[in-house]
């Protein structure tokens, strides 16, 4: 049974999805265009027994989210470009200490204060490498309001399952867009919780021991009677700092492995008309909707064009690019930035495809007409 259809904003769907996934803690600092997420969370959370706090800044919000998650609550924060930058150090802390949490970034134009009210997709690389050092991360990007709901649940589930921060990379269009949405029956929603140690099999709990060989250590929450140490320093399986090269290499490798060994579980994308496509438009977020619209129009005119809509941005779905049909010659990467994702697409294309960028960074979205024009231009020159 689904709920009655209602008009819902992307940012609102994000909070509803988070609560459905079990979010019971939100700490944030207002920033356009993510602010509605904080406002709605402030209203909704206490109704389900959860906690909302408006912290003094973005850095504090990220710290509070990590603290709350260690205390056992599913925790989230939301922000936009400049605030996302401020969160990066503590985000790296969560990556290294394997504290599950969700960070929503409703992108706006940058750099710096940039264009607060205008759409952009300029945080693709910040979402991957915004914090220092080698670290795992998962980044999802929704295109539709209903998908924001589903993907926020997925963000929590992946974060809990792999003990890694998960970033929901939205853009202003998706965050502020209102669409008709039917929410699923709560009973049908699959919720994943962090793995707990099996104390019948464990003599000594080491908080960073890979007991199951899947790279993900089981987690005890603070206050449950099994005290342990958490530090942002490189640590051994007991959680204590180590300067040993072997310990360092093992830890970083395990952190990367727990994601890299599970790409099929994490990576999600949508393919449209790609079976015989000569040109494929790769896109994500609101831009992908223009790409899909353009492809539908062009197909009617007989143009062999397809769309690859990325739902998982990081880890990057290299296989989806490499497995494009033998007919595919050209890839157009449409994104509202100067060209961030295109470099990764070029890396996976390994020269097999012509990779062309369709970029817009003036605070306006990429329209279906612009995608159509680009496809025609590419096909004519090909």
């Amino acid at each position: 049974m689904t709920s009655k259809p209602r008009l819902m904003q992307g940012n609102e769907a994000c909070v509803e999805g988070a609560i459905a996934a079990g979010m019971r803690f939100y700490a944030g600092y207002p920033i356009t265009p993510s602010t509605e997420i904080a406002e709605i969370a402030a209203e909704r959370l206490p109704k389900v027994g959860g906690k909302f706090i408006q912290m003094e800044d973005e850095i504090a919000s990220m710290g509070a989210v990590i603290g709350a998650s260690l205390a056992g609550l599913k925790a989230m924060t939301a922000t936009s470009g400049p605030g996302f930058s401020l969160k990066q150090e503590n985000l790296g802390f969560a990556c290294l200490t394997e504290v599950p949490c969700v960070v929503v970034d409703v992108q706006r134009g940058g750099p710096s204060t940039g264009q607060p009210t205008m759409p952009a997709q300029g945080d693709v690389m910040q979402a991957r490498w915004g914090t220092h050092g080698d670290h795992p991360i998962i980044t999802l990007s929704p295109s539709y309001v209903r998908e924001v709901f589903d993907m926020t649940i997925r963000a929590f589930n992946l974060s809990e399952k792999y003990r890694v921060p998960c970033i929901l990379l939205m853009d202003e269009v998706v965050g502020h867009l209102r669409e008709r949405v039917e929410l699923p029956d709560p009973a049908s929603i699959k919720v994943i919780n962090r793995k707990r140690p099996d104390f019948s099999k464990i003599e000594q709990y080491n908080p960073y021991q890979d007991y199951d060989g899947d790279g993900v250590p089981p987690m005890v929450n603070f206050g449950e009677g099994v005290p342990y140490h958490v530090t942002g320093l490189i640590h051994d399986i007991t959680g204590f700092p180590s300067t040993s090269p072997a310990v360092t290499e093992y830890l970083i490798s395990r952190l990367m492995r727990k994601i890299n060994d599970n790409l099929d579980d994490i990576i999600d994308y949508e393919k449209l008309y790609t079976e015989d496509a000569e040109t494929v438009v790769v896109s994500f977020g609101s831009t992908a909707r223009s790409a899909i619209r353009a492809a539908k129009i062009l197909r009617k005119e007989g143009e062999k064009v397809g769309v690859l809509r990325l739902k998982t941005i990081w880890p990057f779905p290299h296989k989806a690019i490499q497995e494009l049909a033998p007919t595919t010659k050209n890839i157009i990467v449409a994104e509202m930035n100067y060209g961030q994702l295109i470099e990764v697409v070029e890396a996976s294309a390994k020269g097999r495809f012509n990779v062309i960028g369709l970029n817009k960074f003036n605070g306006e979205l990429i329209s279906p007409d612009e995608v159509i024009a680009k496809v025609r231009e590419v096909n004519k020159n090909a």
Partner: protein
Amino acid sequence: MRKNLEKYFRIDKLPHIWCPGCGHGIITGAVVRAIDNLKLDKDKICIVSGIGCSSRAPGYLNFNTLHTTHGRALAFATGLKLANPDLKVIVLTGDGDCTAIGGNHFIHACRRNIDITTVVFNNSIYGMTSGQYSPMTPAGAYATTAPYGNIDRNFDLCKLAQASGATYVARGTVYHVPQLIKIIEKALQHKGFSVVETVSICPTYFGRKNKMGSPVKMMEMLRDNSVTVKAAEKMSREELANKIVIGEFYEENAPEYTEEYKKIIQKAQGEE
């Protein structure tokens, strides 16, 4: 070490990394003794720190311990406490960690009056990075980044805490240990945000740069220059120059943050 205190320490992590003569071990010992005297539930205690010499203390303590990013201990601690108000949250932080990079979090934690006890290890210097001036380094003192003398004026941390809304504020020193333990006990029992500034000594960097002599000499300096709050009331501004005023400055019963939030939950659920 007293046998009954051993359970509070991770004995296998000792010896500690602090320099000979450092006062931080005394503060750590005072915190543990206060916890022991109050018979607090060990499993419900979370000790949170930031970065710096002081912030390595939790690594030696056998509780739920969290060594966070520089200056952010109070932000992490706020999340821990609000998420689970049953936890006894103690923040151990240094003067640089708390008042420079963490200054904003400090004043806002005071303002919220969340039930966290913060013990500031004030050795007047950045020890971990080897002797740069901190916001608590007295004006005129020398540091590696103040080779001609420090012209920054230092905070009065207790006044700052009180003005920001902390509801228990006290200062002790590593020389006056029994009194320090008592103050920390009171802070731990206080419902609300409590701050204990503890004047510590850093012979390696602050003492050496400022020609203060041996650790023993520095301890004698604490002894000879400390005056109680009560005595200070009768002293002139000039007489109080370069003196360390110790004791309890402020105590107030005010609404505590996590309890206020419980009321928000009741309100929100009642309206449904």
